[in-house]
């Protein structure tokens, strides 16, 4: 049973958050082990399993990005995780800037980072954060809507676009984390 089926939902990305929470509470009242503590061992095991399933499904579906990641895996028949399959990819329009950032990061790791360089990195981090925000908005907005509206013939293309967007986001996230470390690490040494 996949996460959508647990909540009795079609494989669509547009999900009403309030309705999802309501349904989550209903399912929790039905399956939470607290209400089966005095039952026979098999019934207790069943409750534990169902409740774990409900919680895992809710965790994934309530977060719009995790929901897309899951849908992509599900559509590709990789429901059980096997590490990251799609390699994080740099957004093409940022390739040149990324090159500079990587250079600055290497410098920071080597220990040489003056105030100006740190300020530049901080500015770059902010820009990348904004760029990641845009990518996320695109994923949960137009791309998700496109998936929900697509007929069977269009799905493969949209799925590929979603996968690409997720890879871009994953890449940005890694670089932002590296920048954070470099900026804060250097700040710590200075202080």
């Amino acid at each position: 049973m996949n996460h959508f089926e647990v909540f009795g939902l079609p494989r669509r990305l547009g999900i009403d958050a309030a309705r999802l929470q309501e349904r989550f509470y209903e399912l929790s009242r039905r399956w939470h082990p607290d209400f089966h503590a005095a039952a026979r061992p098999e019934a207790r095991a069943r409750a534990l399993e169902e409740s774990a399933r409900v919680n895992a499904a809710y965790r994934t579906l309530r977060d719009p990005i995790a929901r897309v990641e899951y849908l992509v895996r599900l559509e590709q028949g990789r429901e059980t995780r096997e590490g990251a399959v799609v390699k994080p990819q740099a957004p093409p329009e940022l390739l040149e800037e990324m090159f500079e950032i990587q250079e600055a990061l290497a410098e920071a790791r080597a220990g040489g980072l003056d105030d100006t360089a740190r300020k530049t990195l901080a500015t770059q981090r902010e820009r990348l954060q904004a760029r990641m925000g845009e990518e996320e908005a695109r994923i949960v907005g137009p791309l998700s809507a496109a998936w929900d509206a697509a007929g069977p013939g269009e799905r493969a293309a949209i799925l590929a676009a979603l996968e690409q967007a997720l890879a871009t986001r994953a890449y940005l996230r890694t670089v932002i984390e590296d920048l954070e470390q470099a900026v804060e690490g250097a700040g710590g040494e200075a202080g």
Partner: protein
Amino acid sequence: MSERPRIIGIDLGTTNSLVAYVDDRTGLPRVIPDEQGRRLLPSVVAFTPDGVVVGEAARRQLVRRPGSTVYSVKRFMGRGYDDVKDELKYFPFVVRPADGIVRLEVGGREVTPPEVSAVILRALKDRAERHFGHPVEQAVITVPAYFNDSQRQATRDAGRIAGLDVVRIVNEPTAASLAYGLQRLKEGLIAVYDLGGGTFDISILRVKDGIFEVLATNGDTHLGGDDFDRVIMLWLLEDVQAQHHRELACRPVDLARDNEAMQELRLAAEAAKIRLSGELRTTLTIPFEDFTYSREIARTEIERLIEPLVQKTLGPCRQALRDAGLRPAEVDEVVLVGGSTRVPLVRRRVQELFGRAPHSQLDPDEVVALGAAVQAQILAGGITDMLLLDVTPLSLGIETLGGVVSVLIPRNTTIPTSAREMFTTSVDGQTVVDMHVLQGERELAKDCRSLARFELRGIDPMPAGMPKIEVAFLIDASGILQVTARELRTGKAASIEVKPTYGLTEADVGRMVEESFQYAEADVEARMLIEVRNEADTVMTHVRRALRQAGDLVAADERERIAAALAALEAARAGEDRDLIRERTTALNRATEHLAEVMMDSALRGALGTRRAAEIMGEAGEGGTPPSRKDA
């Protein structure tokens, strides 16, 4: 007696422990007192030649038998030697590394932290059984929300050793929210700030339609009132050394290495902290072997000392808010739990962070036990309109190539929950696969908490990469991990051997359960005799010291009267007549009342100049003063 099984709720605290249940008639949780009406059981266990003593009687031995009296054992639960070695110098008992866990060397024997906790749990179980008049076998036990898997396992092991089936481990702040929920909580977003004796937790919950959904939790399992006491104690130590350097120069042992003296200082630090939570100034008097230390302390002085510790609680609060996706101002109510939230500085800082006054209508010492009782009643089927949805506090992952952790279940995931991961072999014909399971938020395995190593065995020999082994990780409603695996091609379950990194093996626990029956505490009669004897010993120690130190301040006939009362008590203590021992203890106390007053007066004259001792007798009477006090 009800037809439902009786499940008790236990708060196994760093400093104090309690047991509670829900009264079927009123539907409200109640703390079960002991025969003397005391509600808190000090979490102190003394290993004496006469047997094991727990609670108040053990607490009174802290100074006299520092090496064999264990306190704050919760700090050692589920911990390895490296986790605790930095703070060992503050503990008077010997702690040794032992195969992933630690052992305490007390009173000529070695015990593990779960065995010590089991003594406390057994005392609470006895207390409940006396109250109900029938055996109790099941319990809900609370732990700090930020406890990891090993610490939870250790708590459950302690329950088993005490003869209790621990039907659920519940997080302390969420238990507290249940107690509030039953009595007075509005719906909305709640922050529970729980600062106890040794641990700190912050939990953010959404309460709606009887569902208590934890959104995020954070904390520090090594931060609490004990740490406040410690910084105050070290400051006092410096001051004693400065004020009394001449007397100290004649002592054979350095004050800082004198376990008894350090225990006196620790208890005095605690007493000062408690008094300064209510008052702005207090006078502290500590009798030592050969002199008496006395000084006035202002609340601001203590606040300066503990400020960095209080600040340390705010980081986890901010992180929990971030994880819940909330700004501080969005929280509707802030609830304070744990004895250390009585400290005014703590309240001020919490109020500043959330921008609203926190509340603590329910006794912060009792609220967790009351909540545990509510959870017990839910499990017993007695409450059906409340449900707690708690989360796992730490991310769970496995070590992958290069020592990097791959997260399977992120922190703040609602439990129970499960995750699956596919494994395969890397060498042709490989039949065993190793797995290293970790808990923590860091990227590298070496920076996370190692939980266990698993070996998947019996894989059919195949070319590398061919086997597909699906491993399922399940975190149950107590926050404890279970792992199962199966090979997908053959469908057969792979056998898993678990090697817990920290903690007792199944065999260890089995043996301890048996031993605990063998060494089962002496019956109630014997234990009560031990308690009165201990009380007598404590009083006699104080009196002997007082006579040595200040005997010449009173007349010869008074000295003789005291000596006679002392001898009478000594004689009674050798026998087994409890009432006689108690009677003569009281008599000795009464005989020394005047001496105690004279000593206090003289100490205070030294410390305070002209201020009359009687004016401050009230404040100075608490804590480590001589045993007798002026009758009101």
